[in-house]
């Protein structure tokens, strides 16, 4: 790994100042960034750790919404969100393994937008708002394809605001070697309708399955999507599964998520 200057600010304002240097990159839990740097896929001159900023830590309830600080670890979300938003806590508790969950953070996961990561499904599957150091971004505008987001250079997430659904669940078909999702589906039921977000399947990263949303909004029952399918075109195909296999999993995991949520 190439060496770099390490900076650890204790406030969002100090982090913004540190990141104003164009050679600087933010570091959260590092569970993806550090292996990438070891492989020399990434070699920042300055790393700005976001884990020492108190205002970016923790889970808090604000009326009908749950706010999660961007530097909150998966382990903390699994524990602290459980009584407010069990679907989200359940997802966080399935990420990686215990050691990854103790370091990895929600902000880091979403900003990276790995096409097989779990958290993007929860963010897109709710009507979540991503709050950054400079603006608020709706989940529907945030994810822009594999490893691509609406974040500008130097911009970083400070928290994510989730409207708490009436019922929700995440069904993950585990890829056991990487512990990412071979395909994962987050389903959330609101008074206004149902959202269905799929990760791990598409070459474009996380996506909403509109047909299933319509069917489940009129009848929130796993059988409501039994006759639906997504095309295999554009699905990921690799040694772990063909595009047809992943397309099939999209429906199967949607049904499992609905059954677990209802």
């Amino acid at each position, binding site marked *: 790994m*190439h*060496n770099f200057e*390490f900076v650890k600010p204790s406030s969002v304002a100090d982090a913004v100042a540190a990141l104003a240097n164009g050679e600087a990159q933010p570091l959260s839990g*590092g*569970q993806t960034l*550090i292996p990438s740097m070891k492989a020399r896929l990434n070699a920042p001159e300055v790393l700005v750790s976001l884990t020492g900023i108190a205002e970016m830590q923790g889970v808090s309830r604000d009326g009908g919404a749950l706010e999660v600080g961007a530097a909150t670890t998966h*382990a903390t979300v699994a524990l602290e969100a459980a009584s407010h938003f069990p679907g989200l806590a359940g997802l966080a508790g399935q990420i990686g393994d*215990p*050691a*990854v969950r103790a370091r990895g953070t929600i902000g880091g996961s979403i900003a990276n937008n790995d096409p097989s990561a779990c958290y993007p499904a929860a963010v897109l599957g709710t009507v979540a708002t991503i709050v950054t150091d400079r603006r608020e971004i709706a989940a529907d505008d945030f994810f822009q394809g594999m490893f691509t987001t609406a974040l500008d250079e130097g911009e970083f997430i400070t928290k994510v605001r989730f409207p708490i659904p009436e019922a929700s669940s995440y069904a993950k078909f585990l890829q056991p070697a990487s512990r990412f999702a071979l395909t994962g589906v987050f389903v959330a039921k609101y008074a206004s309708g149902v959202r269905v977000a799929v990760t791990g399947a598409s070459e474009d990263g996380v996506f909403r399955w509109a047909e299933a949303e319509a069917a489940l909004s009129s009848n929130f029952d796993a059988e409501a999507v039994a006759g639906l399918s997504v095309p295999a075109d554009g699905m990921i195909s690799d040694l772990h599964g063909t595009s047809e296999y992943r397309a099939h999993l999209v429906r199967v995991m949607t049904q499992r998520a609905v059954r677990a949520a209802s």
Partner: protein
Amino acid sequence: MPKVMMKVNGAEAAADVEGRTLLSTYLRDLIGLTGTHVGCDTSQCGACVVLVDGQPVKSCTAFAADLEGAEVTTVEGMTNPDGSLGVIQKAFQDYHGLQCGFCTPGMVMSTAALLAENPKPSEEEIRHYLEGNICRCTGYQNIVRAVMAASGQDAGALAAE
């Protein structure tokens, strides 16, 4: 280079680090605690797991500079005060929860984290919790037995594979 201080196994430690110095490097090369093993160095195998403020962490995937002031426990810190093997270490010995022993420091530390949050885990819970710790010698049967024994449960109750 900045000096990073931590409390490691109850003792104050200090060492000069670069930005890129990993916690595993800090422990092994800078303060001389080589019990922590670096297996894959790519965050896959779990051999390097230590406790940081009570939580299991892959020490090859954390920067030392990010852990200023942290309380770290390594496998060396798992012994009894008189230097004899601690309960978890003894159980791994008694139940032969290892063959080559390379993965054992990480197995012991992940077990310590598991038992801290779940003192009487079931076999299924043990296997689930240790899924980030890879053993390439024995299979996992004796490791699971060791964890059962370390938690004061009947290791003999496990079905034979």
